[in-house]
């Protein structure tokens, strides 16, 4: 329900107020605005142009989503008929054509940020990458191209996605490559699964998550340090930060006998994110360092309280009150901390 309200709000109400020249009439009378500028403002209001940039992008995005989904379904439904091979060839041709087009249109390769030549370029590239992944998937399914080496079958598309992301400079493809990297290691790290699944129950996945999260953060720092596609750094850091901290928390919850050990591992990781946030003045990173840190700290405190309860007789009511006190005061403290840091960082909305 909240999802619905939020998306409604974002879609329909994030328009912002229109330009209003009457306010400038008043400001002109008060001597703030020169007559020459007032005339210009009136003109601008009369000939205002509303940008439908994001609307067009949404149309293209949905188009790519439907097209690639429909094509995938088409192959899947006709998997044993002759039409199958035809469709596969069609996918391969379309993907090749897309890559060919993008290669011709793209700016010369650079390790810096390459501006996209056209909006359409972004979505055609996305479609080509999707079709390529689909093609490799079905090729393996039908002809066992990689035999039983399933790891290789997901490794190759992942590698190609990374290459495309760097070669054509596309953040969306990079994000896809990173989630595919996770899939290759056997874990789902798409944004929503990360937000939903707090505990994974499998030790193996927790360790993989810690390793992959650390690795992604290292790559992020390395990109910035060497200035190799430095604008990719945030995407790596974002995935890495959430994955690492969520995995450490999962370790704490799942292997609860050793929760203190996991907590000791969590503290430096969380502090590191906090430190980066302060250095970069990134409120986004700061917020998550604080939120994850708060969860970990509260968990440890609650564990200690329940330990105390088992040791002391007749202390349960007092301890529950103590717990409530802690939660109320700490929430108030968090509000104050966020408020203070927000004022300190000054500029809003830096991610």
């Amino acid at each position, binding site marked *: 329900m909240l999802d619905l309200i939020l998306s409604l709000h974002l*879609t329909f109400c994030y328009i912002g107020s229109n330009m209003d020249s009457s306010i400038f009439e008043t400001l002109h009378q008060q001597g703030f605005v020169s007559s020459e500028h007032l005339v210009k403002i009136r003109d601008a209001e009369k000939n205002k142009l509303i940008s439908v940039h994001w609307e067009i992008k949404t149309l293209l995005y949905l*188009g790519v989503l439907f097209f690639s989904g429909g094509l995938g379904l088409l192959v899947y439904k006709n998997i044993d008929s002759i039409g199958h091979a035809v469709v596969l060839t069609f996918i391969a041709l379309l993907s090749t054509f897309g890559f060919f087009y993008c290669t011709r249109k793209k700016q010369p390769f650079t390790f810096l940020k390459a501006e996209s030549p056209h909006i359409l370029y972004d979505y055609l590239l996305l479609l080509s990458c999707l079709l390529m992944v689909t093609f490799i998937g079905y090729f393996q399914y039908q002809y066992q191209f990689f035999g039983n080496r399933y790891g290789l079958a997901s490794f190759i598309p992942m590698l190609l996605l990374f290459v495309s992301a760097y070669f054509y400079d596309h953040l969306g493809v990079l994000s896809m490559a990173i989630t595919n990297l996770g899939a290759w290691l056997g874990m789902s790290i798409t944004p929503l699964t990360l937000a939903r699944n707090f505990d994974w129950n499998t030790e193996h996945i927790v360790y993989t998550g810690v390793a992959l999260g650390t690795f992604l953060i290292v790559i992020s720092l390395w990109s910035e340090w060497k200035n190799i596609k430095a604008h990719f750094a945030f995407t790596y850091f974002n995935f890495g930060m959430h994955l690492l901290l969520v995995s450490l928390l999962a370790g704490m919850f799942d292997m609860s006998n050793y929760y203190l050990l996991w907590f000791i591992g969590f503290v430096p990781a969380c502090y590191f994110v906090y430190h980066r946030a302060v250095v970069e003045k990134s409120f986004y990173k700061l917020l998550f360092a604080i939120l994850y840190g708060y969860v970990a700290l509260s968990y440890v405190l609650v564990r200690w309280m329940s330990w105390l309860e088992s040791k002391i007789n007749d202390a349960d009511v007092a301890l529950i009150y103590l717990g*409530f006190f802690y939660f109320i005061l700490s929430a108030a403290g968090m509000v104050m901390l966020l408020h203070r840091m927000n004022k300190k960082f000054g500029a809003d909305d830096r991610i």
Partner: protein
Amino acid sequence: MIVYDKTKLHNLFIKEQVGKVLSRNILSPSEASAIVQAHPVGLYSPGWIARFGLFIATSFGLSSAMGMYMMIFMSSEVESNKLIGLLIFIFGAAAWYCGEIFIKKNAHFRSGVDDALLYGTVGAIMGGLVQMLNASETIFFLMAACIGMLAVLRYNDRIMVLMSLVGIGGFVFKFSFFLGGWAKALLPIELFLVYSALFFGIRQSRKKTYDIYEASKQMSEVVSLILMYVAVNYYVVREASVELMDLSLKAGQDIPLGWLFWMLTGIMPLACFYFGVRKNNIMLLRVAALFTAATICTIRYYYHVLPVEVAMLLGGIILIAIGWWLLVYLKEGKGGFVSHKTTPEDEAMKQLESLVIAESFHAAPQSQTADRFGGGSFGGGGATGDY
């Protein structure tokens, strides 16, 4: 009526306007800074990231406080629902009072703190009242409409607009069931008329110049328009008639006035689109796109014209083609619309977009695609259909 300082709100509006004009290089920076200095805002409204964090922290604190409060006053003697309701109501009222003092003193405006306090206290007050009065659904909807309206007047909050409008619809719905007969049979038309009256009434009340309630009015227009469509959408009317009014349909049978609902389902997207283009209103165009998707889903639900994969392929091609055409057609700007950005690049939006891509296109192993894309992608149209 409004809790925020009116002068400060007006100064905020001036600041936004100056920012808009400045980004087009119509105003000189010295003029701009003189204006902004002469109109100090002094409201604390952080960006959305900080707002999100403050919202979470405040809601958490508020619910902990409520938990402790209930623990103190709830003993084994308090068993009647009415007393519990009274306790919750008192908590909500007290928290509302304290929150208001806090908001006024610290000049919070859309900071996450005021949002959380508003929703939390409205929730507690309403929950408490329902418990206390043992209210029926009719009363509940009426209460949502009234309390929502008061909250909108005082806080100018959009989610309260939504609550209030849904409350009105719910009340009409329940009340017509209570009346029965014709009132019940003509329910979709009644709802349609109520929401169109709201929509056009609010439209009329829009001022040309500065309006404190601009945001709420915008939201109520959108919500009324969407609920107007939902009230007469053929799928909704048909399924609701079967589910709620015990209408039994034999195969091939149509609901009464079926032609009217089909007509409205078809006309509303077109009308929104037409007026959106003519009046240069982006909101109407977005609503038109949503209605179009919903109408297509409705038609496909009753007439299986194409197999799903062909429909998706064609739909994808059509969407990409429309996007492409718009890009070219609006390149220089036409009819008040333009295809390129008019505001500077927003890094957060780019990152968000890449996350959406990663979410919707993760790995494509065979059978998964069948479930995923078939059902999920039409969610936009389907979601409104549940009402």
